[in-house]
């Protein structure tokens, strides 16, 4: 039963241009919460600060201001507290071709988080868990000995999902998990994520720029524009009755078969 909460999160970067330096506010006063068993979609265009939020939540960077709370308490930045946080909050990266080390086999990628967070497991236990994890993401357990370059994009992303699930987390952050995949296999990976979310009672932050999948796969939608959250609410509400101008723009940009074919049927051939 994990709950991750963000309050007043700000991240500024200093840009140096010769002697002048300006500040770029990538994330500006953002607040939301992630609960177990719920999927929250974070939607926005490139450069709107979505991935910066993911990096802040994963403690790959320090926020300039604001706080991140895990189960109501501020998160630990070092020591045993950080290890516990790393076990509970996991991530699926965008690019499955970059997120697996070309030098190591699939088993290494799954065994490391298992060893780190369950140090008392024996070698046989770990092998059994690796097989189980691969089955969970619908991969042949025989792939354990393969290197990443022998796998397809979809298989790699499934391995990355298995790696994120290895420490048995409560929160999963998926940063555009299907944007680098072939259109034909995107649905399979998204369905897998949805199934795992239900079975493991995960809280999922689904970062995307695709409103259609955001509506289909998530309970709540946050719309982000220039570092701010401009709209948030239940998925259908945000899509069907957009309040903010930017959300309306996004919704209009999504191809809508009903509207298109509706127009065509009205014009007589």
């Amino acid at each position, binding site marked *: 039963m994990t709950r991750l909460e963000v309050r007043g999160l700000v991240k500024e970067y200093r840009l140096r241009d010769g002697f002048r330096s300006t500040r770029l506010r990538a994330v500006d006063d953002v607040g939301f919460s992630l609960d177990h068993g719920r999927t929250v979609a974070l939607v926005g265009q490139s450069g709107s600060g979505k991935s910066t939020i993911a990096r802040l939540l*994963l403690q*790959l960077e320090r926020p300039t201001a604001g706080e991140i709370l895990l189960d109501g308490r501020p998160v630990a930045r070092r020591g045993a507290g*950080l*290890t516990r946080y*790393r*076990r509970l909050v*996991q*991530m699926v*990266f*965008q*690019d499955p071709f*970059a*997120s*697996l*080390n*070309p*030098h*190591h086999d699939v088993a290494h990628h799954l065994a*490391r*988080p298992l060893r*780190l*967070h369950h140090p008392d497991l024996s070698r046989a236990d770990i092998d059994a868990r690796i097989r189980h994890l691969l089955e969970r993401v619908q991969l042949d357990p025989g792939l354990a000995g393969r290197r990443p370059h022998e796998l397809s994009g979809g298989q790699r992303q499934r391995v*990355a999902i298995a*790696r994120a699930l*290895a*420490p048995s987390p409560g929160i999963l952050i998926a940063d555009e998990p299907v944007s680098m995949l072939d259109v034909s296999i995107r649905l399979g990976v998204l369905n897998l994520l949805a199934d795992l979310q239900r079975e493991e009672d995960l809280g999922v932050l689904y970062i995307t720029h695709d409103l259609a999948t955001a509506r289909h796969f998530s309970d709540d939608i946050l719309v982000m524009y220039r570092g701010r959250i401009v709209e948030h609410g239940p998925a259908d509400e945000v899509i069907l009755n957009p309040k903010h101008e930017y959300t309306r723009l996004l919704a209009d940009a999504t191809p809508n078969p009903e509207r298109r074919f509706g127009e065509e049927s009205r014009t007589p051939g």
Partner: protein
Amino acid sequence: MTGKLTAGLAIAVPIVLFGLLGPLLVQDPSRVDDIGLSAPGAGHLLGTTQTGQDVFAQLAYSTRGSLIVGAVVGVLTLLLSGFFGIVGAYAGGWLDETFSLVINVMLVIPGLPVVIVISAYMPDRSLLLVSVVLAITSWAGSARVLRGSTLSLRSRDYVLASRVAGEKRWRILLVEILPNLVPLLASQVVFAVIFAILGEAGLSYLGLGASGTFTWGTMLYYAQNGLALRLGAWWWFVPPGLLLALFGAALALINFSIDEIINPRLRSQTRAARRGWRMSREQLRKAKEATL
């Protein structure tokens, strides 16, 4: 196994074996004989020097000496450039700034003049001292290259992923980053060995090399002092010169083949590879234009 690697190993391995085993089989290279300068013959496989020392025995000891210099400089360069290049770039912050400054300072120090000054200052030079001097003046270039690669590797997604998994920093460096640098390290070491052996030969030829030991450079130095060229004593200066050139060429070939492993694009840049494509002359010309 590419052709280059095969050719390189075919030349380098026999020379290394000769350097390792040769000195165990030959006579004392410094033993003076009253037969004087004599051409290759029955008793002396490669003839003798002016003072009747066996050239073949000297060649065996010289090979060993030059290889020791190459090995010591190779290892020291690997350690120094790895430490300053990889650790600094990975740690970031002020450590990176400091290490970067050290690398840049070492980079602009002109190598050979410093080596000559240090060598001239030390009246009694051992082989080890010469190697250390060569190493500390030559590691900076490869440290710079390693720093660049590490900077690019440390922000890759798989490194971030292992941070998210909770890996310790030193383990990320050793297990996730270092294996991807191995081909680069290998080619840097091979280059350092070539540089060291040629540099030592140059120093010795100037009379600034190690005193009291045999290397290919000292052999050439004594051959030149003994007027070998004017006396037509080719057996005295050709063998060390030839081994020096052959070993340098072999290591360069090995280095090229490592480069092709690092950067597969280089593989199609050779004429032999293009011939394998079975294209018409017209198509080949276009392909060449496109890749130039």
